């Protein structure tokens, strides 16, 4: 055989061989419930089994970092959070990003003026940085801001009528997709729809209870989506 033909034949034969296995080839040719199948969660040798002694856990920060001792004799990294790399990474959006975020997800012509809420959201002074944190008070502030934005910007016949379960489910699914940049689960849609359909029927003001207007009912629900972690965190 000529050398050039050999170069051609080897990969072809290899490809044929690779494709000639049975349907369970990718699982090692074993029944998924076979105790010897390494992909069986009950197999102690399963590489994905966290109890597998041959499967060391992900290294934490202190196991991978270099230690430096500062002038006071204290390790510079002593106050670093200790955690497995790549997990628990959710963070609260900073105040400085919120106005543009509201503009983006609600397709507003301009970013809303949130200057009056700066202190509540813990906006640090110029040239300083503080890790943003949620609190009861700034969550309530976020809810109020969102409510006002929703009340001002929800336009159209849908919002002139009191929400029904079907209409609320549709609108909630749309908001959640837009505000969170992902498809919501049915439970998440239900949680939002409940606010519009059940929770917001009657408001209480200083003079007593009153029937909530349709636009405010929609706004209560819309604001609940904007006050969830899907929007307020990244």
């Amino acid at each position: 055989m000529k050398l050039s033909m050999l170069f051609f034949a080897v990969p072809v034969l290899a490809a044929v061989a690779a494709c000639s296995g049975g349907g369970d080839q990718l699982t090692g040719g074993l029944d998924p419930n076979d105790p010897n199948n390494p992909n069986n969660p009950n197999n102690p040798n399963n590489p994905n089994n966290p109890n597998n002694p041959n499967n060391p856990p992900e290294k934490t920060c202190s196991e991978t970092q270099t230690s430096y001792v500062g002038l006071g004799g204290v390790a510079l990294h002593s106050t670093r959070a200790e955690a497995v790399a790549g997990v628990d990474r959710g963070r609260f959006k900073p105040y400085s990003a919120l106005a543009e975020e509201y503009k983006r997800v609600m397709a507003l012509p301009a970013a809303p003026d949130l200057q009056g809420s700066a202190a509540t959201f813990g906006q640090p002074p110029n040239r300083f940085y503080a890790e943003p944190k949620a609190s009861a008070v700034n969550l309530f502030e976020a809810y109020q801001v969102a409510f006002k934005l929703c009340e001002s910007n929800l336009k159209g016949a849908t919002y002139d009528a009191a929400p029904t379960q079907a209409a609320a489910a549709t609108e909630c699914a749309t908001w959640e997709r837009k505000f969170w940049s992902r498809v919501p689960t049915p439970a998440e849609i239900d949680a939002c729809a409940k606010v519009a359909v059940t929770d917001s029927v009657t408001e209480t003001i200083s003079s007593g209870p009153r029937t909530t207007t349709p636009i405010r009912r929609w706004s209560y629900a819309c604001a609940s989506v904007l006050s969830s972690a899907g929007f307020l965190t990244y």
Partner: protein
Amino acid sequence: MSKLNRRSFLKAVGIGAGAAVGTRLAGPGFMGDAAAQMAEGSPHLLLIHLQGGYNALFGSADSFTGGTFGGVTAGNSFQVPNGGPVVDASLGRLPPMARNKIVSVGVFHRQSAHGAAQAGGITEGGACFPVQLAAAMGGQASIKCATVGGGSIQGMTGTAGGVSIQNIADVRSTIAALQGNDTLPDRAISGRALEGSQAMSAGRLGDSPKGLEHLKDGYDTVTATLKKAPAPYAFDRILPAYGVNGTAVNGFAAKIAAAELMIRSGTNVVMALDGGWDSHGDRQGTNVRNMMNTRIIPPLITFFDRLWVNNTEGVPRNVVVCIMGDFARSAPGSDHANGVCATVIGTRTKPGTTGKVTNTVGFNPNLPSGKGLYQMLAAALKVQSSPFGPNTAHAALIG
């Protein structure tokens, strides 16, 4: 640390002299039955932490009389009557009802680095004492532990018994959450809607149980707050009493005003942090006295006047105030000591001291760390089941 100029120096001298005169005019022993009656009310703690350090000349002034450190003289110190400690005259400017209950509490945490010392004062094994105390104090408030105006010291975190530290950064938003008004979204509906928000957040909260712990705590607290009936007190009267304009909590007077607001709304433990106390080189204590006289004491006078002396609300409260810092300042250069002499004022405190230091700012080696202080505070607050154990080291300071 702020620089001393001629004007601030003259101001400090004037205030100090006025304080010294004041302490003589009022005389010792003014303490009616009112304080004893207040001790039976709901407990509240205002914890003031001076970031950088709390010079022992404030709580143990006589340790330095005639020495080369601290600039202590008879004219700038105050003898707390009935066997109390000799403290700086700035503390003697407080209303007699409060200053006559001053005690000095020694905290020997053995740490001279800022972060470790801060943690030594408020933590043990990762547990944050103020949060534990707020949880043990019980009560009906939805915000049981708060910090006013933000900031943080090492160890100031965590959750105990469902209680976490909630930051109060703006009084307007806080009053809105506590009381609401007709221009805002309905409180009850907002509370239910935020419960919905929390339900929608379950996945992300579950993915980041530590990183978003504050968000989970925030949802828990805000929904609990909005379920409660609007708070009846006219909170808008508080800020003018402290001379505070605007609702952002960003100065010390605003922090103490916010602390009063939170205490009146039922919060158990309020933490107010103040920066600028890393007073290296302040050998005569001039700068720290100036800051104490101009920034810390004036709003505290108002605070005690409104909550101790002239509390017309008719709600009995046992309000305790604790002033401490990372550590005392060491002699002679006003650097880092390895313990702190805290000042505690409460209706149940019995004038005395466990915090007297040597003239070189040495601490009694038998003193406990921060846990001992919290054992004492729990006793002063009359907490039924203290999570810190019995108050043994400072038992003499409770009447």
